[in-house]
């Protein structure tokens, strides 16, 4: 029987990061995926011949420099583009853009309110402070109080130290951030509805909270996590891998292969062999068995436990706890191929911020109504839409003159109140997106070569992501840090020996790209007594 030190299930981004770390540490690693190409939800897809984009995600976001350096990714061809923070277009024809340059960004805000232009200084300070407090918690494995008496104690003490060192005023700021609705939080800084809507729209994307839902303020800090704080800067930047997520996947694959790891596509794992609560290996769909010292699952937490194991093999209560993890689809993906560059007459010509994406959003009350529709499982009437045209920055993604357009439609329920999505509702959603797009780019409909609409349910069916939840589990405080994916299992280690979770269902979730994979690898290597080879 074939046997490896470690098997990684799922060649998604985090699976590949974990495999790369393990392979570089000298382990024999095998990555298995049922799809024919690597990438998981970030896999590249041809929406029409020659038009390439990531099928399920927008594909923005950068790896933390630590992971890129550990894995030597620049040497394997990975480059990142630093784009501006993006533009929000409002229904009244106005827009608000983000700029990295502090003076330019302040002038932008001053178009709406001079007072708010000045208030941005304090907002930026508070966001950077919050991000600075959050960054160490997200950088490594979660501090799980339950595990290892001494390690746990030390972690708990260091956490207690850190909390004790927080000044009372700062503690109040932390509390505000983690409890308040985004709208109330922003009201404490800004007066302009456009400024607030621009910040809220960027923050609400990908989350299950509305701008007026308690605790949604915490999402405001996420775009600032990778910013470094000099005193005069502007809005946070957007990082994008040059060549799209496909380039990132390719670089990671190249690292794995160069370090002696192996990848097998079209190899679906259907079962995990377990004996005395110790994982022994995997069984493929074709009946083939492969032995492994450790198995790392890049699937979401529900799929990892509920579909790979016989439930009778799982420890008591685990099935229930995994079942209670909240994973809810919140966005539909619309992919488009265009035979010409879309024009946006409402935006200034050559607006550099467009490279960081375009959001179509109403003011905060409209966003909240869109969220309420989602909660009531209504088909969206006025959703929040985020658009990225990666071919603007990287023309190789489309045939000459053509463009690819990715849109995430936020607040799309998995199942409607009336039942599963009927075909006409799906078509209506596609039409709604086209109508909203045509409002900011008249005539764009004439240039559409291909269009596909992927509902949360399609994402689940095609890629196996439960609920089509791109966050791999809600990112609310009760499902973050040591509580991710559920209290008692914080981090990559699972109640089953030799079985690790390397998907964003584990800490740090979707907040740090590749973070879950890196954590799983370092946890396993720590168990094996090996150091991470940088």
């Amino acid at each position, binding site marked *: 029987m074939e046997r490896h030190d470690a098997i990684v299930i799922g060649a998604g981004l985090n699976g590949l990061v974990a495999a790369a770390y393990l392979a570089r540490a000298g382990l024999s690693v095998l990555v298995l995926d049922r799809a024919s190409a690597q990438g998981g939800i970030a896999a590249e897809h041809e929406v029409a011949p020659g038009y390439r984009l990531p099928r399920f995600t927008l594909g923005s976001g950068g790896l933390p420099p630590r992971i890129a350096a550990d894995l030597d990714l620049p040497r394997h061809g990975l480059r990142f583009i630093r784009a501006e923070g993006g533009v929000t277009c409002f229904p009244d024809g106005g827009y608000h*853009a983000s700029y990295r340059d502090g003076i330019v960004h302040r002038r932008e805000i001053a178009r709406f309110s*001079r*007072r708010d232009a000045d208030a941005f*200084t304090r907002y930026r*300070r508070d966001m*950077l402070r919050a991000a600075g407090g959050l960054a160490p918690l997200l950088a490594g494995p979660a501090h799980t109080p339950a595990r290892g008496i001494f390690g746990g104690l030390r972690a708990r003490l260091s956490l207690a130290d850190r909390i004790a060192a927080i000044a009372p005023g*700062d503690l109040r700021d932390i509390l505000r951030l983690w409890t308040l609705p985004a709208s109330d939080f922003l009201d404490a*800084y800004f007066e302009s509805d456009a400024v607030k809507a621009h910040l809220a729209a960027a923050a609400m994307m990908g989350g299950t909270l509305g701008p007026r839902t308690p605790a949604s303020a915490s999402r405001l800090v996420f775009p600032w996590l990778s910013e470094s704080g000099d*005193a005069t800067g502007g809005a946070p930047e957007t990082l994008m891998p040059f060549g799209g997520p496909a380039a990132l996947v390719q670089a990671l694959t190249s690292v794995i292969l160069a370090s002696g790891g192996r990848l097998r596509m079209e190899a679906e794992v259907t079962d995990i062999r377990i004996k005395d609560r110790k994982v022994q290996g995997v069984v493929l769909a074709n009946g083939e068995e492969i032995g492994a010292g450790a198995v790392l699952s890049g699937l979401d937490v529900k799929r990892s436990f509920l579909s790979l194991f016989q439930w009778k093999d799982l420890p008591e209560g685990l099935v229930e706890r995994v079942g209670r993890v909240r994973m809810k689809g919140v966005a539909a993906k619309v992919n488009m191929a265009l035979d010409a560059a879309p024009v946006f007459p409402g935006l200034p010509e050559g607006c550099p*911020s467009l490279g960081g994406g375009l959001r179509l959003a109403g003011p905060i009350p409209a966003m909240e109504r869109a969220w309420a529709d989602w909660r009531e499982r209504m088909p969206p009437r006025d959703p929040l839409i985020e658009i990225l045209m990666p071919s603007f920055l990287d023309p190789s993604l489309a045939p000459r003159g053509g463009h690819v357009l990715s849109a995430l439609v936020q607040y799309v329920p998995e199942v409607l109140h009336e039942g599963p999505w009927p075909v006409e509702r799906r078509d209506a959603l596609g039409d709604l997106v086209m109508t909203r797009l045509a409002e900011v780019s008249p005539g764009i409909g004439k240039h559409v070569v291909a269009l596909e609409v992927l509902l949360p349910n399609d994402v689940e069916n095609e890629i196996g992501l439960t609920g089509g939840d791109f966050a791999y589990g809600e990112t609310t405080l009760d499902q973050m840090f040591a509580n991710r994916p559920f209290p008692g299992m914080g981090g990559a280690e699972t109640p089953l020996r030799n079985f690790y979770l390397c998907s964003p269902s584990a800490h740090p979730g979707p907040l740090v790209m590749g973070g879950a994979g890196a954590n799983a690898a370092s946890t396993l290597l720590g168990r094996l007594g090996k150091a991470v080879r940088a």
Partner: protein
Amino acid sequence: MTPDTAPPNEHPDIEIDLGSEQATVDPALFEEVPAEPPFARTVHTTPLHIVTSAESRTNRWTDWNGYTVPEVLTDLGDEYRALRGAAALADHSPLVKYRIFGRDALDYLQRLVTRDLAALEVDTAVHVVFCEGRGLVLGDGLLFRLGEEEYRLVTEETHLAWMMDSGEGFRVGIADVSATLALLSLQGPLSALCLHEAGVANIDGLAPFAARWADIARMPVYVSRTGASGDLGYELWADAEDAPHLWRHLMEKGAPHGLRATGFALRELARLEAGFPRAGKDYLSALAAVASAGASTPFELWRNPLVASGKAVFNGGRALRSLAPVPPRRRLVVLVADALEPVSLSSVLSGTRQVGTVTTSGFSPALGANIAFAMVEDEAADGELALTATLREGLGAREVVLRARILPAPLKP
């Protein structure tokens, strides 16, 4: 006039008088909110750009509050000699200017700033500091009382959000008048003479920090005896459209007495010698300092900060009263390091331990030494101090340690 209605053989531009600056000043250059998108223009100029750019022999420009201003117009040494020996004219329009007016203006300002303003008379100015609730400095500036219920606050950075938030409950209006008000700084021992020559009568009668309206070449100008040079000097507040004419007029009348146009580098050097810290450079506003240790109290920044004891309530008052008797943890001091040439200074050492950081540095021709603002731990400030400097020779760089001493009082030239 469209081309087909224009009479033949007549140049359509003929009506524009090329000799008049007004015709060539682009009003959009200093508009409050430019119509174009913010990214489109990276060079923003002040109303005086037309005259300063004409004076520039070096083409060296720098950014001040988002505006492009001359760094050095001719030669820093010459400009310095003019400032200390005759008179120097500079464009200080990038400073932020707020108009504060209304029935409660005085009450409001009493709440905003730390010092007591009860004795502030019309047509005088005072240096003010304003703090947030924990007694950390937000900014400092010059406050003018222009009328009974009319004030002007001049600061280095914008504070509109804080000022409006503090204004809750007061019948007060706050307006940012930075765009419409140009500021010419005329400093130096012969500055009064230059003003006299320019037609300002009885300028010697103007006491320090006093101000009055004057008529210069039929332009209304508010003249104040203020400035951050530590020397005799005046600031001239004029309408943005008048400013280039006023500049020309002053240069014409003052040049025979040694008046020179000067740039931003000289302002930095002069304020360093005179001991005026600059917001954003020597200290960070408490609302901008990401690390809470990056913010400072007034006791750390000024030797004798004016914190009122009689005033009932003002922003940061309670915190400042409890801070006042405690020696500050660190102090902003002016250090002098003997070296015959300008060097680049970075950190302050006491023995081998770093006890501070240099925030601004320059070479003072008056002292013949390097001079620097540095935030230094209070305990170390009384002991022996040294500065690390980088000396460049050819392509090589050498770290040296220079002995430094604290300048006890601002330089009196």
